[in-house]
């Protein structure tokens, strides 16, 4: 069924992306939503690396560079996101997203 190695990697990445999306959309806790976003970013990186590996010009390093920069940006995003969650927790004393239903602090 799986014809090429690239197909296998792309399917695994799609599965991890879908799991991350499901986590981000169904969980109540804001931290779990951030974790779901991290999983989605990782799945995207896996796609980039897989296409780099099986692409026609791997010596150009384009896909790999994209993945490296993506990892750096995702790390920054995780730090700021978790900082925001902690800050919100101080204000409303909860991380339950269903209870955060007003914009006023």
């Amino acid at each position, binding site marked *: 069924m*799986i*014809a*090429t*190695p*690239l*197909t*296998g*990697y*792309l*399917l695994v990445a*799609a*599965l991890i992306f*879908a*799991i*991350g*999306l*499901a*986590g981000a*959309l*169904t*969980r*109540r*806790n804001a*931290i*779990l939503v*951030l*974790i*779901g976003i991290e*999983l989605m970013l*990782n799945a995207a*990186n*896996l796609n980039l*690396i897989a296409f780099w*590996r*099986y692409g026609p010009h*791997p*010596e150009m*390093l384009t896909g*790999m*560079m994209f*993945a*490296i*920069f993506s*990892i*750096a940006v995702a*790390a*920054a995003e*995780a*730090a*700021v996101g*978790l*900082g*925001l*969650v*902690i*800050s919100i*927790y*101080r204000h409303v004393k909860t*991380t339950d997203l*269903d209870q955060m239903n007003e914009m006023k602090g």
Partner: protein
Amino acid sequence: MGVVFYLISALAVGGALATVLLKNLVHCALALTVSFLGIAFLFLRLDAEFVGFAQILVYVGAVAILVVFAILLTRAAELPKVGVFSKTWIVGLAIAAAVFAVLAWAVLRAGPWLPNETAAPQVTVNQIGQALMGRYVLPLEIVAALLTAALLGAVIVAMHEKVRTK
């Protein structure tokens, strides 16, 4: 496709599933670390050694610790009485399933046209450094500025609010 690929994929996907499904958030963070490790192994198997080790350093090392800190600081490890899933979880699950169905359909449809097994690219860290300092030097500098800004921003956002002096 070797047995190793299936084992590593099972590690990554199983870790991701456990992350999303487990109730206790500390267990979720541990499962997340396992999933990141599986993805790092997939990178290593794709002959991207540098990215694989960067993944271990950044995700397994730093992001997982950050997540654990956030969980403990917000006391999210205590189980909520109302359940861990949102009221509208069935909609989210349907959206995720639809996204996976479309992606898998596209990948399987494109399967015969995708490139087959090629020779492993010989990429040294030297070459990566040359590329980072040559062709990609502007993005590198922007990422440096971004990381500095994110570091300061995260500290300022999460800092205790000072009592206003009158």
